[in-house]
C-alpha cells in the first residue's frame, strides 16, 4: 500500500516508520526540512536508504501534495500540528484526489466528532487524554 503522511512531528514520523517497517510504501511531506531527522532517529539506515520518501513543502500547496504522490495514495494521514490544516488537507485528499482511506488528527474533540460524522476518520488525542485522566482519577474521586 502507498501511505502518504503529511506532518512529520512525533506522531507522523513514528507512524511513518512503523508503516515502512510493515512493508508499505511510505511518503512523508513536511514544510520543515529538519523534520527529516526524526525519520532517521533510532534507525540503522537513513530514511531514504530504507526506501522512504520525503518531500519538503506546504500541505496546502497542491503541487507539493502531488510531488509527494497523493495521486496514487491508498492511505492519507494528516498529522500536522494544526487542526485546521489537517481538516483542510484531509478534505482535499478525499474530495479532490479521491484517496479512499483518510485519517486525520484533530485535537479539538468537538470537531473530531462532527467531522467524523462527515466521513473523515478522525483521531483525537485530547479525547483520549480526557478519558484516561477520568479513568485514572476515578478511584481518587470515588
Amino acid at each position, binding site marked *: 500500500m502507498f501511505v502518504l503522511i503529511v506532518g512529520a512531528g512525533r506522531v507522523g514520523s513514528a507512524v511513518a516508520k512503523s508503516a515502512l517497517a510493515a512493508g508499505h510504501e511510505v511518503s512523508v511531506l513536511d514544510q520543515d526540512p529538519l523534520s527529516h531527522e526524526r525519520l532517521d532517529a533510532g534507525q540503522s539506515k537513513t530514511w531514504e536508504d530504507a526506501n522512504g520518501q520525503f518531500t519538503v513543502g506546504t500541505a496546502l500547496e497542491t503541487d507539493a501534495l502531488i510531488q509527494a504522490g497523493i495521486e496514487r495514495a491508498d492511505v492519507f494521514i494528516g498529522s500536522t500540528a494544526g487542526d485546521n490544516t489537517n481538516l483542510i488537507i484531509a478534505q*482535499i485528499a478525499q474530495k479532490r484526489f479521491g484517496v479512499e482511506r483518510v485519517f486525520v488528527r484533530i485535537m479539538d474533540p468537538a470537531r473530531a466528532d462532527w467531522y467524523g460524522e462527515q466521513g473523515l476518520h478522525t483521531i483525537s488525542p485530547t479525547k483520549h487524554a480526557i478519558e484516561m485522566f477520568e479513568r485514572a482519577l476515578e478511584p481518587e474521586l470515588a
Partner: protein
Amino acid sequence: MYAIIVGAGKVGRNLARELIIKGHEVSLIESSRSCYLAIEEEFEHAAQYGDATELWVLERAGIQRADLVVAVTGDDEDNMLVCQVAKEKYLCERIIARVNNPRNHDHFRLLGIQPAVSATDLILRLIEHEVPRYGMVHLLALEEERLEIIELEVTAEAPTVGERVNDIALPDGSLIISVLRGGIGFVPKADTVIEAGDEVLLVLDTGLEEALTAYFAPNGHTAEA
C-alpha cells in the same frame, strides 16, 4: 438581519461598522487577545473573544440564529472551516469567505465555500475594467449558478456593427442586457442598432465567452475611441 463576522482586522471592523450603521445586529469575533481588547471599546457587547473555528465559540455567538456568516480572517484555513461549519453543521443560509492567497481559491471551491472573495482578484478585475485591453471584462461570475455577465467593446470590424439587436442571432444561453454608448447605459430594444465603440453587457451561460467575442470583438482588440 443578524450577522456574525469572524476576524476583526481592517475588513472585519469596517464591515461590522457599516452593518451596525445600517441597523443590523452584529457579532464580531476575534481570536487575538490584544486585538480583541482594542475593538471591545468601540464595539462593546458586539465584540467577542475566541477562536471561531471552535464550535462552542460560534454557538456562544448564536450561530443557530445567524442569517449571515462572514469569515474575513487573514488565514484561509480558518475562513474555509468557519464557513463550512456554518453552512453544513448550523445550516446558515448565507456565507461569505475571504480568500487571502488566490492560489487557495480552488480549495474554497472544492469545499463549496461560495462566494469566496479575493481582494487580489477583485483588484485585477478592476484593472481590466479600467484598461480594457483584452476586449472582454468579466463583471460577475456566479459559479454555482453557472451564469456570467461580461462586457465587450464592439470593434469596427465586428459583424454585428450596424445590425439591429433583433437580427443578431446570439447563441442560446446569452442575451444583451445593456449597451453603454457615450458614457450612458441603456437597455436595448429590438430595433437598437449596435455601433462600433459600444460597450455591450451580456448575460451568458459559462463557456460562451469565446463565441460571443466573435460577435462583438472578433480580433480581440478594442476599437480606438
